[in-house]
């Protein structure tokens, strides 16, 4: 009886000791992490302030008046003229000159066409058939073989 209870006591003591040690270990660990977080936060605050100061310094050095003065004295840039703007790609294409008779052939790059390179074809008939349907029936995109044939026929 006494033996058993002593054993049990020791058992409890060991149990409590282990738990306490674990608890202390965890507390130390938590506190270590906490202080690390605090240190990181402090570092963030310092860096944020530094960032703010540098940003402000940059904004101050590059203020609008300063930029205008530099432009007036050093660069002399003018605002773009109306004819320097392009509205569409077509307008851009209109700048290209037709090929002269003796010009070298244009350089071509080989590339295998993917089926996704072509837009999905929409049958005009499909829309005609179901005028009520909002979604027009899509014709499956051509497979690679078909695409090649289509390309060939265009040439």
């Amino acid at each position, binding site marked *: 009886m006494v033996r058993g*209870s002593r054993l049990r006591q020791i058992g409890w003591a060991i149990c409590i000791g282990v738990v306490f040690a674990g608890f202390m270990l965890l507390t130390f660990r938590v506190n270590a992490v906490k202080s690390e977080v*605090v240190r990181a*936060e402090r570092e*963030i*605050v310092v860096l*944020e*302030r530094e960032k*703010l*100061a540098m*940003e*402000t*310094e940059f*904004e*101050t050095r590059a*203020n*609008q*008046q300063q*930029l*205008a003065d530099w432009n007036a004295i050093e660069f002399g840039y003018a*605002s*773009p*003229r*109306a*004819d320097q*703007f392009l*509205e569409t790609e077509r307008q851009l294409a209109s700048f290209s000159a037709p090929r002269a008779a003796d010009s070298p052939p244009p350089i071509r790059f080989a590339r295998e066409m993917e089926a996704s390179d072509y837009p999905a074809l929409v049958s005009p008939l499909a829309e005609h058939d179901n005028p009520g349907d909002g979604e027009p029936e899509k014709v499956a995109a051509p497979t690679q073989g078909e695409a090649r044939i289509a390309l060939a026929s265009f040439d």
Partner: protein
Amino acid sequence: MASIPIDSMVAAGPLRVANKRLESLLVARMRALLLMPAFGLIAVVALLRIASFGVLGAPDTPMSMEQRLLPPRGEITDRNGLPLARNYDAFALWFNPAAMKDGGSPLVHTPAEVAAKLAAIFPELDRADVAERLASGKAQYLRRRLLPEEANKVFEIGEPALELPAEKERFYPQGSMAAHVLGYVKDGKGYLGMEAVLDDRLTDERLRGQPSAISLDLRVQGALEDELRKGMLSVNARGAAGVVLDVDTGEVVALASLPAFDPNDVKPTDLIGTEEQRRLKQPSNSFNSVTYQVYELGSTFKPITIASAIDAGVVRDLGLRYDAKPVKVAGRTLADSHSLGDTLNVPEALIHSSNTVTARVADKLGGDKLRDTMRSLGLDERPYIELPARGQPLGPGEHWSRITTMTVSYGHGIAVTPLHLASAYAALVNGGIWRPATLLKVEPGTEVKGRRVFKEDTSARMRQLLRMVAVYGTGRSADAPGYRVGGKTGSAEKPSAHGYRKKSLVSTFAAAFPMDDPRYVVIAMLDEPQGTTASSYQRTAAWNAAPIVGKLIPRIGPMLDVRPDLSRDVDISDLRPLIRSDIE
């Protein structure tokens, strides 16, 4: 455990029982004796802790990251989030004679040497003055707002008495730009501009972490001030004012009043005026000439009169010719600046800025109708804007005589601020809706509904007419190619105690662009421009204010997402045949 004593008691008799009791009592007492000091110790520790709280105060709790990063006053940004006003730690240069702590001289070197070294870093410092201040041995600021590199150089001097404390300062990175809109801060309180208007929001603990965006666009503001300043200097004008207003929302994209002041360093003379300004009774630099000063804006009022007449159905046929000879009314003669022929139609009258025809149109329209239009354009009350500086217009009052109606029709006898004019022009071109101007950023879809002043087709007509003024008339130098600018010049003599002064003018150009789908109104105004070589010795708006707008619009157009396009324009083909080209 509990069964053991009973067993032994039965076995040993009453004596053992008494012994056992004594023994247990002793043990209990011993335990109590041991426990008592333990409790006492805890009580003492607790008392000491309480006492330490009482004597030393509660220990400082470490501030959270958010609290540390929260600025003491909120940031003000432009509509794109770029900073216009912010708080940050700036280095100050503080002379602390007690820093050496050895009781000897506060400086390692002589005051003259240190002053020379400081003057090498800050060229604007007065060497003798600084040397004297260092020798005086009094703690004081030698300079504020040092750049970090300047602070490093001061540190390299190696004087412990020269301290560099970081101080919280309100800082305006753009310097004097938009000073009248922003205002300034003194002792934590905002004055003059949005600093005063947004004071509660900027200091509110819950809100100040988020920047407050205002409607200005920093780049447009910079371009406006730059062009105004150049224009003002080239014609030697006393002051200049300008505003860029979004016609559909009423947002002020740029607002400039020159001369300006630097909110980073507000001097008393900025507020009360320099001696010369006071002697000449001129406003100080902090005076906002866009929202506070009222001017007779002259011919820029003509489009308003014409629009009112078109809207009321008084002018139906734009080809109809009016008598353009001087008008004799109430003993006075109203004439044009130079003869424009015997008759003119309405488009010609606007293109050549005829007082006589506008007066005759106004006469036909009647004073009541013209007054109602002016009233619905808000020209009889202080301008709608958040700023505290809002000027009360001066007008002819409730009952307009015939001559009053005639002179008001071309902008005389009524004085308003340039901002009034901008809001009125916005209503003129945007389809006829008047909206109050605002300096707060308006989110798309939340703009004020406004009130209808002109019919949609009246506004369309005005777009054509204003465009024609810029293509064929007095506004030609404002016609930036591709931007479809339309607008009207105005040059009014300034009134004085002895009638109008012929030589001091206020010249204004009120414009909108692009005229086929107006987005922005631009007003440029010069106060007392002189005739110089830059303006071909002319003082009128066509030679000084209109060129400013002509240079400004190509600069700000692309920033405001208005692309120039030479292939687009307002269709003026129906009005083109109505104008003769022989008058100049």
